[in-house]
């Protein structure tokens, strides 16, 4: 064991961690937003909204994330004629992919709200979007917060896949340091520890929220 390798390259790896966080935050925000629209479309009675959204969700849930990244990587140059930079490519594929997972969580959350609420909102003269915005979503989002936090942790872990298109996020940098220093055991344990700390914090937060919610309902 030679832990000095970690201290010597700490600044370099820390820079990657910042990029990892940027990726995660943008993907979570974008995925959540797109996921809400997809979930609403999937619950819609209109076939032209329901079928495309359902197809989208099943399509992305049936594919590995790494393949979605490649899809974008190959498809975009064909359509636009020039390649996308790695950061944009990673963010777009994460948002497209994670939105499908968010959509299913949100759909379950919305379905947990009784239909009486929707009927009351319509009876009160609200439009579809007003009903969604002011009545259903505030309650549903609260119910599904624990599941959403868990999914956010998953996305944080998934950002390590940006490695494959050469984006220098945390894991890529650990890998680069390893290529130079040849200290795999220390470096990968360190990488695991860093991810573990942040992900456990997320998991604890999710459990806390769940307990809070259960207390509120009781």
């Amino acid at each position, binding site marked *: 064991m030679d832990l000095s390798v970690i201290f010597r390259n700490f600044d370099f790896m820390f820079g990657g961690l910042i990029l990892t966080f940027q990726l995660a935050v943008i993907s979570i925000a974008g995925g959540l937003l797109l996921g809400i629209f997809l979930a609403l479309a999937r619950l819609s009675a209109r076939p032209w909204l329901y079928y495309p959204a359902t197809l989208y969700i099943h*399509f992305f849930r*049936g*594919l*590995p*994330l*790494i*393949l979605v990244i*490649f*899809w974008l*990587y*190959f*498809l975009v140059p*064909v*359509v*636009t*004629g020039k390649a996308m930079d790695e950061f944009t490519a990673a963010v777009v594929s994460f948002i497209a992919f994670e939105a499908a997972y968010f959509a299913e969580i949100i759909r379950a959350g919305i379905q947990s709200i009784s239909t009486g609420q929707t009927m009351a909102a319509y009876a009160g003269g609200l439009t579809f979007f007003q009903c969604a915005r002011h009545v259903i979503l505030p309650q549903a989002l609260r119910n599904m917060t624990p599941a959403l936090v868990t999914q956010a*942790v998953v996305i944080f*872990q*998934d950002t*390590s*896949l940006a*490695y*494959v298109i050469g984006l220098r996020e945390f*894991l890529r940098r650990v*890998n680069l340091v*390893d290529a130079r220093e040849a200290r*795999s*055991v220390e*470096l*990968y*344990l360190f*990488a*695991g520890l860093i*991810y*573990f700390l942040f*992900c*456990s914090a997320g*998991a604890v937060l999710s459990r806390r929220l769940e307990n809070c919610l259960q207390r509120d309902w009781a």
Partner: protein
Amino acid sequence: MDLLSYTFDWTVLWRAPYGAMLIQGIFTTIHLSLLAWAIAVLWGMVICICSVSSSRPVRFAGSAYVQIFRNTPFLVQLFFWYFAAPLLLPKPAQAWLYDHVPQYAYWAGVAALGTYTSSRVAEQFRAGLLAIPRDQYRAAYATGLTPFQTYRYVIVPYAFRIIIPPFTTEFLTCFKNSALTMTIGVMEITHTAYYIDSFTWHGLETTTAASLTYLCISGGVVLLMSLIEKRVSIPGMIARGR
């Protein structure tokens, strides 16, 4: 700018030598995920038994395992198995490994995917056990069954049916995660699709073929499992929480 200045050439999917490579890739994906799944189920069962054990240290070990493997990215674990794990072996074993196991990437992939999935499987086993109403145990004990008989004839058949849907999901996750082994050089279908692109510049076609492989197999598994679920369902069984 002309849109779609790309000539599709679908023959890349079957003409030699690429057709055979793709088939080989599909098979690698399938047996890698099946092997990893077998490890995950067996090892996951052990972890689950540990985490519901009455002994405190054993229970702690079980839940620590689950936490560690769930809260680190699979890619980090994969790199650990591939790059770091051999270094932990004694020198002669290392030399043997490098000399005699040309497929080390494959086995590292199986080990990483198996252990990672086992932590998720263990949680599903546990949830399945906990979903069984306490009354089932009490009723079984009251009729004079031993603890082993209670598990064998009452609890396990019951839990088995509860865990079919989550296990289907976990298997598919395991199946999709197998794509990540491409990062350590396993020639499964995703890697093959990427690899063929480097000779032919027809990555779009091969990626489509890879995507269809995943979608078809996932669809097939879902269909099969829902048939099995219907087949074995007990009329009137409703799983409630404790």
